[in-house]
């Protein structure tokens, strides 16, 4: 079972009224052999990521790397300025005044780790992308309020449109829509 993102391949879109209903829909199709899903929910649905077998985001490591790189860079810059480039006698303090270099090092670590986290969250989430095929589905706008949409079988050879539509309805879908391939443009 894996996550598949809509974009290039056709998919079945099913509308559910709650998170648990959505999870039930996935379980029903999984039994039918469909393995590729995506979901669009107004808030995070507990258990969804686990059900789709997603591991923890690697965003943490990106943030860590950025924080260390820029924090270390900040310290090195301070050292280079004060020891190498233009050493000046400042109140009799040592050129390499390590304790005084720490606050900026810390702040730069946090700043760039945070920026990396934000940018990664946006980019890894496939954003910015103002238009997306799912926005063409009538009623999709409730995905940001109280409806939970499931996309089934994106690029999945096992997808059987009629069978799976029936299965989704049986699992509690309020509505099932066919989302054509991207080549079709706006349906």
């Amino acid at each position, binding site marked *: 079972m894996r996550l598949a993102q809509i974009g290039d391949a056709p998919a079945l879109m099913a509308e559910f009224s709650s998170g648990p209903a959505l999870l039930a829909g996935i379980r029903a199709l999984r039994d039918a052999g469909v393995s590729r899903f995506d979901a669009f929910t107004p808030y995070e649905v507990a258990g969804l990521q686990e059900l789709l077998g997603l591991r923890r985001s690697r965003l943490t490591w990106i943030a860590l790397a950025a924080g260390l790189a820029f924090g270390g860079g900040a310290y090195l810059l301070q050292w280079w300025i004060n020891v190498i480039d233009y050493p*000046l*006698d*400042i*109140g*009799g*303090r*040592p050129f390499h005044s390590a304790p*005084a270099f720490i606050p900026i090092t810390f702040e730069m670590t946090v700043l760039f780790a945070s920026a990396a986290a934000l940018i990664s969250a946006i980019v890894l989430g496939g954003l910015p992308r103002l238009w997306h095929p799912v926005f063409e589905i009538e009623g999709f706008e409730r995905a940001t309020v109280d409806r939970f949409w499931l996309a089934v079988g994106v690029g999945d050879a096992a997808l059987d449109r009629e069978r799976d539509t029936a299965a989704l309805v049986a699992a509690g879908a309020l509505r099932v829509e066919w989302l054509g391939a991207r080549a079709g443009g706006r349906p």
Partner: protein
Amino acid sequence: MNDASEPPDSSLPAPGLDRLSRRAFFRLAGAGAAAAGLAACSSRPARNILPYASQPPEVTPGVPLHYATALVEDGFATGVLVASHQGRPTKIEGNPDHPASLGATRARDQAAVLSLYDPQRARSITDRGAPAAWSAIEQLLAGARAHGGRGLHLVLEPTSSPLVIDLIERIRTALPAARLAFWAPFAPRAQLAGNRLALGRALQTQLDLRTADVVVALDADLVGDHPMALAYARQIADRRRVVDTSSPMSRLYMVESGYSPTGVIADHRLRVRPSEVERIARALLAAVIAQGGRGAPAELGAALARPAGEPREAALIAAMARDLTRAAGRCAVAAGDRQPPRVHAIAAAINAALGNLGRTVAFSEPAVFEAGQPSHDVAALADLVRAIDGGEVTALLVLGGNPAYAAPADLGLAAAIARAPASLYLGLYDNETARACRFVVPGLHDLEQWGAARGYDGTITPIQPLIEPLFGGRSVAAILHELLGDPPATDHARTQDAWARRLPGVDHAAALARGTVAGSALPAVAAEVAWSALAAAIAAPPAAAPALELAIAPHPFLHDGRHTNNPWLLELPEPATKLTWDNAAQLSPRTAAQLGVDTGDLLALTVGAAAAARTLDVPAVVVPGHADDAITLHAGFGRDGGERVARGIGADAFRLWTTAGGLSPAVTAARRAGHRELAITQVHWQLEDRPIALGGTLQQLRDDAALRDELARHRGPQPTLLDRFPAGFPTQHNQWAMSIDLTTCTGCSACVMACATENNTPVVGRGSVLNKREMHWLRIDRYLEGPSDDPVVVVQPMTCQHCENAPCEYVCPVEATTHSPDGLNEMTYNRCIGTRFCSNNCPYKVRRFNWFDYKHRDLHVLANNPDVTVRDRGVMEKCTYCVQRIRRAEIDARIADRPIGAHDVVTACQAACPAQAIAFGSITDPASSVSEQRRRPHSYAVLHDQGTAPRTRYLARIRNPGQLP
């Protein structure tokens, strides 16, 4: 609510010098390459280079030349050296060869350059305010010349110039009917009259304090307000410098009412009202005679003897007499000019009785022409008024001075002058006298004219111009020549001619180069006290003191008001009160309590009674240590002329000066509704038991290990995490340091003014001073110790201490303040963004911030030192140890391939100090005076416990009080 948001004082000169006159000035000044010199003053780069058309051989652009000349006040010359940047005088230093300077200057001497460039000086000849031509003056003078000078009256300032005297004598001969009066309100008159009482002749007292072990000053501010103050300050300081625990030290007694600089350094100070000084003097004479005074008739002593007064007073008089008698021949008693002639006579008698005459005290003919004669008296002015009212005056020439303002008010001189049919005023300003006169001719500043004058000791001092007259003014001599109908000639030619006639055999050029005529001091006159005449003169006991008396005193900086338009001097804190931009009635805490006033509350002072009563509203200022039941009020304020800076500030003390009451009249004071916020720069006067201004007595320094240990603690090693000099203290560079001697410092503030002139320190105005925004890099702190009504004062020059571990440096976020390898705490103005963090972290609070654009405006910019950056608004500044002088000396030494000499770097404050209380040099040179002073037992660092390792150290204030019997 704070009104600090007021802009810099609007009374300061505003921009507005028109283009034409600025250009005219440059042409006149011959400052062809001025652009190069001025480049440093502007934040905008100069666009043009203007080379000389013909470069004077002595000029190297950027390198100032020094010329010797003199500044004259009340007829007495102080020799100075003036630095000129390509024809632009910028800085005044004392002339070491001149006996009245010895290299030092007074605060007001330093400020003279700003007066020179005062844009509010009189600029053109006027006739009742309307522009007039010189021909009108020629006509007036030609008319005055007729009939042998009948109806012609002249009022001059006292003069000692041989050249002017020559002219006066010619006038006396050619125009015998002309009447002359000489007037300066604070010219010394009582001393001459007193000596006439004691010696039979109006002689001038010449003190030589170099050998005086004991000095008693009877209301005589020897180191502050005296034509010879600079020399006396040096002489007294030389006898009081503590080098080690075995150093001898003279003893100084001061009897006075206000708290003068002499009172500050005195070992014993007796505060009495001015009128009581005579009582003290009489008792002292009696005691000296009783202890075996030479030549003095014992019966005189018996006649003066009186029941002992208040115990402390009696004890002090006994101690003075004891010390004086022990040091007979090596002591001196001096009386101040505010005292009546009888006190001067008594002082002369005491000196005679102690055998001081010919040793520490000598007499000479007066240096000033006709001093002590009737032409110098108030009566001469009264005669003039009578003559005007009698219609006898056809032409009145007032040449210099400002008698319409600075004379007894009941004379009605201003109104009388205005009634004179034809009158001419020659002076620097459109002042009160100018406004009373019909014609006004712009006068010449001392730095603009040729001439000569005598110092107080009589030394002839040539005067030469540093610059062409800025506003086409004329000298007194030029007017007198015109009056005599002399053919036209330049001032220079006339000066040389008169010099050759009056001083034959004295080379003018050589005198100009040296600044003095060697050996021209007036010789001592043999004089003896005529005891019987003296006894008769002082037979009557002094009149009973009034309930409250007033002392109208010359202002320490403005003198009689002649400098009141100089904003530098107005903003210089008056030493006793730290008051700026105002005068106020100084009174003791007890008298203030009795009158129900505190500092700033308004008092109505009334002199005279009934119809003749004169009242003046003036704010009170409480001065601990002032005599009770007495008020001191400085003259020079309440000006009503055309000087825009001076106008309308303070109260005119001269309005309480009557011919009957004199300068120390009985007065009544009453609290008035109202309060004036006084711009006083110090609000807290106690040390709060902090190790800042340390001190003790000579006896303690010798015998008291506790004091020596305490002082040693304040200079010893401090625990620190900082490895300041890992490779040992640097010895290859100079390491600059300063040492300031609190024992000899009088608080006269000459150093403050010298610093301001050298370093382009701006003036901020009264409003900004009220909000503690004054800009002086160097200030004189004043601390009071002991009882609040009679405290001992310690003054402490406080400026950047150039800490080795400077707290200001590490908090600057932009490296605007850093440390140089030679130990300077550098301030890079152009890097400063104005966080003011450095000021907050400076324990000495010596940093100054440009809250507004305080730069000099208008012509005043010409007083700027081109070697020092003029700071913009929004930047911090502070003492640099005169880094421009250090770097100049460094460059000169490096070029000459020699080490910097011990006297190559002299800071501006150091140069100005008459007491030589400031030493500066490198501590890597063990022989330098600063190194030597740091080894003395009473050297210490202020706030040593803060670990700042200041480079400036102080020598503790050591006093030498005697046992009181």
